[in-house]
């Protein structure tokens, strides 16, 4: 039996679709069988006796992500969609047929795989064509957020540019701001901006549907279990949207997100309410256990904006935390308390100085503290310029 790497009984007769790397022969290429099944193939090893080739079954969407460089060549083989690879050992001795077996990626030596970070980076049309968000989320390992925007007075699948850009810009801003809570950061840093970044994948009919996806791919080995950060931010956003214009629900859901999220969320709702009659959000995650939907009418948006403004202007947010007292000065009326999530540093309120637990507070000891959070806005831009914390109460 003759050995032909494009004629493998288990895979069918294959035809090369595109050769990515060539040295004396194709060493990295995509191919397709008669049924249309795609494979990415790499020459993994060669010695005096045989050649070893690895085949990873790929969907069209995933191949586009590999081709464009979003998924590196290492992960294309180390983390295949099918969960396994086909290994072909092709002997030089013509009398012996090739050997085919299915292997788990962890059975393949790392030095047979492309190195992590090796990318094709070829210009690729990555717009999805009629594929379901579930398929893209799974094959691309990306968080997908679909927005259905019903623009006022628009009856075609079109969107006015300025309102649309305001909506998308303020959506990214609120995701970034929620990200600062997860990263325990006072501001949106470059790292947070990069991690939280959403990309526009496509638009479609159904009022006006906008499909967004996390720019970063979800790490199969860690993010799937604990949730990607951007996925967690989308989840929090959906929680806020589902609170609608219910004051108590909004207060509850904003509780751990801090007041600065309220400001950013209010701006997002304002951009929506100015041009959209109603809206629906659908989140699809690579993790099938995660995802959700939310929707708001224009009336709900306007009511929610009023409530959020009241929160910010009239009711400084108070919340209770438990953490370790790291520093305190009664003469200077300052404190520094560290929880597992964040460091709170600020002033001790005059009334708190009357409390026995405050006067006798011991450093490095764990306390439950009531904290008031206030924000300062820039007079020119209206943006939050500083978040201040005040210790109201302390107990053991």
């Amino acid at each position, binding site marked *: 039996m003759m050995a032909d790497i494009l004629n493998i009984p288990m895979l069918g007769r294959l035809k090369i679709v595109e050769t990515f790397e060539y040295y*004396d022969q194709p060493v990295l290429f995509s191919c397709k069988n008669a049924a249309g099944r795609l494979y990415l193939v790499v020459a*993994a090893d060669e010695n005096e006796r045989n050649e070893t080739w690895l085949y990873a079954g790929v969907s069209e969407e995933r191949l586009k992500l590999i081709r464009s460089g979003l998924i590196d060549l290492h992960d294309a083989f180390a983390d295949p969609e099918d969960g396994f690879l086909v290994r072909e050992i092709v002997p030089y001795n013509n009398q012996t047929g090739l050997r085919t077996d299915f292997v788990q990626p962890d059975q393949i030596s790392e030095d047979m795989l492309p190195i992590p970070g090796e990318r094709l980076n070829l210009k690729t049309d990555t717009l999805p064509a009629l594929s379901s968000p579930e398929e893209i989320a799974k094959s691309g390992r990306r968080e997908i957020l679909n927005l259905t925007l019903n623009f006022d007075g628009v009856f075609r699948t079109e969107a006015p540019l300025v309102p649309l850009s305001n909506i998308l810009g303020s959506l990214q801003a609120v995701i970034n701001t929620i990200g600062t809570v997860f990263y325990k950061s006072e501001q949106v840093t470059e790292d947070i901006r990069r991690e939280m970044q959403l990309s526009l994948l496509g638009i479609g009919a159904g009022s006006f549907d906008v499909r967004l996806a996390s720019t970063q791919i979800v790490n199969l080995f860690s993010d799937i279990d604990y949730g990607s950060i951007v996925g967690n931010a989308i989840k929090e956003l959906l929680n806020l949207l589902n609170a609608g214009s219910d004051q108590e629900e909004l207060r509850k859901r904003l509780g751990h997100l801090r007041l600065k999220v309220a400001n950013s969320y209010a701006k997002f709702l304002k951009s929506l309410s100015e041009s959209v009659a109603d809206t629906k959000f659908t989140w699809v995650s690579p993790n099938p256990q995660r995802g959700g939907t939310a929707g708001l009418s224009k009336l709900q948006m306007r009511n929610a904006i009023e409530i959020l403004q009241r929160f910010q202007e009239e009711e400084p947010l108070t919340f209770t935390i438990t953490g370790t007292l790291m520093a305190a000065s009664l003469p200077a009326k300052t404190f520094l308390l560290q929880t597992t999530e964040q460091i709170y540093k600020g002033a001790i309120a005059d009334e708190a100085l009357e409390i026995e637990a405050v006067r006798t507070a011991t450093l490095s000891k764990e306390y439950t503290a009531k904290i008031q959070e206030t924000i300062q806005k820039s007079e020119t831009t209206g943006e939050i310029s500083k978040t201040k914390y005040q210790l109201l109460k302390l107990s053991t």
Partner: protein
Amino acid sequence: MWPEFYPDNCPPAEAEPASGTVYRLVQYDPAQAQDFKTPFEKNPGRFDNKPTIKNCGLSVHKDPQDSERLRERLKNRARKFKNSQIAEGRLNPTLGMIKQTPSLEQSHHSLWVPLEAEPWLVFNIMS
């Protein structure tokens, strides 16, 4: 005189007499005949015993950086290339015909070598 196993249309009509300086990944120092065996010669069964223009050609680069980039990628992937080195050779028409056949590396060329030629003698390992 071309090797007997070359198909009728090989080298292709667009190929030109070999000339200029090219670079090739080799296993031996100094380069040896084994470094210049065509894929078909090495493993005809792998090609169902059917020689083609492609599997009778040898890969060379006109730009040494392309060879270096390819070597860096391949040496981490295919163990055969772990100890490969880049050899520089100045071609002349007695060494065959050459044609640009770009891959990821734009300077990739295919070289078809006549039966009597000994290209390894003009290739030197780069320091």
